């Protein structure tokens, strides 16, 4: 209960906090939310299904209002809470964090995200899915560049189109299950109606594809990132996109696996195209944020393709990679944000020689660069390793395509790093890192290395959920919840 509603309450309170106190309030509040979720984590037994809300009756429309979490959801909740704390910390020395509206909206978004991760009812899931869109939209609008309407519209309408498709699919799902409870939906029987299942899942997938974003649906991303404030980009990239990936693992596969056989290879192909396409475009981008946006397309294409393999290892690896991508996203956009803050530009051509004047920043940026190219010792390595392995096992062509990210990733990331940090000393004045930025970088590095050396901790939590899906797919599972 408090897990879900604490952010909402704090979010509403945040709107009324005087400007002077917003900053500490935001950080403390986010940490307290994180603490609450950690308490849940401590009391959590990996094989449990903790119900937060479990009304016995079924309401009209098939609404059940069930909410609860398993290991998978709890990991996502923790990720959300941690990332939001980090984002607030990263923005500590920026004007935006003393804005009550920003803080409030961030918590509202957190509320929507936690709700999404813990909802066990189709309509609730959809509701939170849409709800998450609103705060981020306002954050992007109010704190982004003022001339960003076009990009914003594109973002909003794209995601809305996806959501509407998802709505259609959920409506259709209603004909296959007695109500919208997750436990009923996963038992929806599509035997003999695989094409219908494929169409329904296609609708849901469309929503996810837009948000991830998969290859042809990504055009909203780069302009949105470019125009967004640093915090907004972080929220978008580190959290919003994860909603879709989580949805794929938790909702799409267990419910509609019968139909997904038709979608498996198309999505994997799109993911594969995205990997190469994003990487290739990223190579020549001049704007750091655009570059990272395309890099993100590349990374997420890999994750999406991996999830669509439906193998336990691939999904576990995807989860590791999801967490890693959150770390990377926060890290890289923080770097871009720091540069933009100090120099008012993100164009690589205008940068150069920053490492000379700001060696600490240079060092941390390098660390983040290596984290993002998934070198060993970081979480990305294990994730990428197993994902590419599974893809390779599925088909060698997609395996090789996916592996190209190793090389291309190094190319564009090092180019970005080199272009901005080394080279001709165009930048002569550059304030080095502030304490909060140090702290953020250090925490992120710790997390990345920690998960890189011992990813088992994630796997232990999510394994029961994924095995649940597997058992479901093999067809011998009865549910009582």
């Amino acid at each position, binding site marked *: 209960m408090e897990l879900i509603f604490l952010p909402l309450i704090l979010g509403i309170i945040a709107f009324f906090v005087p400007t002077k106190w917003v900053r500490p309030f935001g950080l403390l509040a986010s940490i307290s939310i994180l603490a609450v979720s950690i308490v849940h984590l401590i009391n959590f037994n990996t094989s449990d299904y903790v119900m937060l809300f479990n009304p016995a009756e079924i309401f009209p429309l098939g609404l059940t209002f069930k909410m609860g979490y398993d290991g998978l959801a709890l990991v996502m909740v923790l990720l959300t809470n941690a990332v939001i704390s980090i984002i607030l910390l990263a923005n500590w020395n920026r004007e935006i964090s003393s804005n009550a509206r920003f803080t409030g909206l961030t918590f509202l978004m957190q509320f929507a995200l936690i709700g999404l991760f813990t909802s066990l009812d189709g309509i609730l899931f959809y509701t939170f899915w849409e709800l998450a869109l609103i705060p981020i939209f306002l954050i992007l609008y109010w704190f982004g560049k003022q001339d960003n309407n076009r990009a914003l519209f594109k973002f909003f309408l794209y995601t809305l189109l996806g959501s509407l498709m998802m709505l259609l699919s959920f409506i259709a799902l209603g004909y296959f299950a007695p109500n919208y409870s997750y436990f009923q939906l996963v038992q929806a029987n599509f035997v003999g109606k695989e094409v219908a299942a494929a169409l329904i899942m296609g609708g849901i997938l469309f929503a996810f594809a837009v948000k991830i974003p998969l290859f042809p649906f990504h*055009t909203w991303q780069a302009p949105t990132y470019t125009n967004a404030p640093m915090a907004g980009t972080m929220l978008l990239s580190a959290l919003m996109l994860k909603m879709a990936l989580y949805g794929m693992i938790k909702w799409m596969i267990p419910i509609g696996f019968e139909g997904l056989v038709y979608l498996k290879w198309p999505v994997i192909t799109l993911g594969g195209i995205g990997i190469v396409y994003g990487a290739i475009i990223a190579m020549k981008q001049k704007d750091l944020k655009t570059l990272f946006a395309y890099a993100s397309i590349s990374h997420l294409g890999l994750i999406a393709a991996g999830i669509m393999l439906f193998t336990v290892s691939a999904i576990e690896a995807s989860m590791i990679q999801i967490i890693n991508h959150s770390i990377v996203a926060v890290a890289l956009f923080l770097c871009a944000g720091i540069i933009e803050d100090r120099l008012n530009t993100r164009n690589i051509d205008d940068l150069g020689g920053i490492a000379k004047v700001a060696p600490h920043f240079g060092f941390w940026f390098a660390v983040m660069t290596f984290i993002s190219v998934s070198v060993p010792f970081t979480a990305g390595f294990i994730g990428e390793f197993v994902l590419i392995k599974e893809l390779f096992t599925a088909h060698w062509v997609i395996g090789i395509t996916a592996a190209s990210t190793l090389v291309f990733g190094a190319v564009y990331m090092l180019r970005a790093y080199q272009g901005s940090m080394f*080279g001709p000393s165009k930048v002569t004045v550059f304030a080095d890192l502030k304490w909060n930025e140090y702290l953020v970088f250090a925490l992120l590095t710790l997390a990345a290395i920690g998960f890189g050396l011992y990813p088992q901790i994630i*796997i232990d939590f999510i394994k029961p959920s994924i095995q649940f899906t597997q058992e479901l797919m093999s067809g011998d599972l009865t549910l009582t919840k």
Partner: protein
Amino acid sequence: MGKDLLLLTLISLPLIGAAINGILGKRMPKLIVGSLATMMVFVSFLIGLTLFTGLDKTTIVHLFQVAKFEDFTLDANFQLDSLSIWMTLIITGIGSLIHLFSMGYMSHDEGYHKFFTYLNLFIFSMLLLVLGSNYFVLFFGWEGVGICSYLLIGFHYNDAEKGLANSLAARKAFIMNRIGDAGLLFALFMMLNHFHTLEFVEIGKMVTASPELYTGIAGAITLCLFLAATGKSAQIPLFTWLPDAMAGPTPVSALIHAATMVTAGIYLTVRSNFLFELAPTTKDIILVIGIATTVVAAFIAMRQNDIKKVLAYSTVSQLGLMFVALGMGAYTVALFHVTTHAFFKALLFLGSGSVIHAMSDEQDIRKMGGLSKLTPITHITFLIGTLAIAGFPFLSGFFSKDEILAHAWMSSPIVYGILMIAVTMTAIYMFRLYFLVFHGSFRGGEKLKSHVHESGLSMTIPLMVLAVLSVFGGILNLPGIVFHDAGHWMSHFLESTTYGLNQIEPEHMDGNQSIILMCIASAVALSVMTWAYITYVKKQAVAKEDADMNAWEKLSSNKLYIDEIYQTIFVQPILWLSTTLASQFEQRVLNNGIFRLTSAIEASGNYTRKWQSGFLSSYLFWMVMGIIGFISYYIIKSTFWN
């Protein structure tokens, strides 16, 4: 202390050193920083020696399980056997010498502590690479050394003149290595799919138990492994990064790009020998690539004017030679050459470092000359190194090279012939280098000359140690024909890790033949030495300027235009694709397509609005039309559908 703990200490010491230096180094005096780092590596070396002496059988140390996936686990395990301990000794031994050297060489550098941090990290990664008991840990080390290499090549990114070039070289090295890494990854995937484990020992057992089951997949795996090896060990087609990597500080070149990291590919191949033995095609490919590399690199080295570039191409060439040995299945021979090469190449690089240090960072041999008197210790040690690499009889290089040549002779005279050409070229460019640098008159101007001085003790001691090793290194693996009892000590030592597969042993060779081959090699080395002495000392020939060169010299000095070719074939198309996709597809098709659609939708609003003309009669007219439509719908439907 048990072996396990000793091993873990051995590995972690450099890491601890790196951590201390990394965090506190800035606030500590340089002497402490340097000696701490050196001590860490040296203690590791000592531990390694302890383990070496107490080595009996293969020991596997389980540290922890990284992750357990559905059908495979990833473990952090370490393996102690003859091969790994041998590599460990080379790494930590040479490593501590180079650390020592660096204390002097880098003494004026701002990033002193950073340098030692990276160096220690590198040693740590390298130890992971060679001590890991499975391909997974190996990969950690593999990539780790790549990162350290990147950091160290680009160490002087702040340099006003060369900063950009340095960082570009670092990037190039990293990316090229990554291509190789991808190959290694694929090999790992295939192994996981077929063996469901990455442990060397287990895979080895499976393969040796039923080789016929795995012949097909072994070919694919070994090809991928070899791709990885070409990346790290700078073979064709991925060798161009190594010469560029000389942008790093000289100790780095010595340690990473001559003595240790580049031999990782050799190590990998030897480590996977049980697989390579099942894949004769791959071995043939390795042989061909090795030969090609050694010749091409030697050719290029002949007309390089940068002292370190010459040595770099020489390294590539020597690595090619080692791969030739691998391609022939002579694993221990390759390792022997690795060892001797580590000695003399480290010596040469450090020597060149000493020269560069003395010359105030001047690297162009055209500006040197006559340094033999100014820097005597460097001169002598460098001479020893040159002799060793050129195959001067009874020096270390002579023996190791000779083994390879003997194997080549065994396999095919053509191979032998080509290798002889390469060996000759090696001698030529090395003596050219030596004479141009240390003899003749000083060409760098008076001002520079006044600065030239012999390096300090911390730099000369490693030189002397390495010189001794270069001279006597051959003892490790004396040819069996000549020295019956002492012979092939190293090969025997390493036998336990090569699984006793059908290796060709030079023992089978006729004794006379062997001696003749040795004589030919010695003769070549001596004659080239004489020729070079005449040309460069007596005739005072100097390296030509570009304009005066004839065709082959141009080819050589321009590195066969390979960089340019790569640029045209691979880099430009991808960058073109990037720009084109971004501007054409992304912008025009996806972006503008959508905006066209939205503006079309908005514009269509103007058309629909026109219907609303504002005239009441029009509204009424349309209402009537609506009713007519409704009734027509009824008439049509009831007439035709009922």
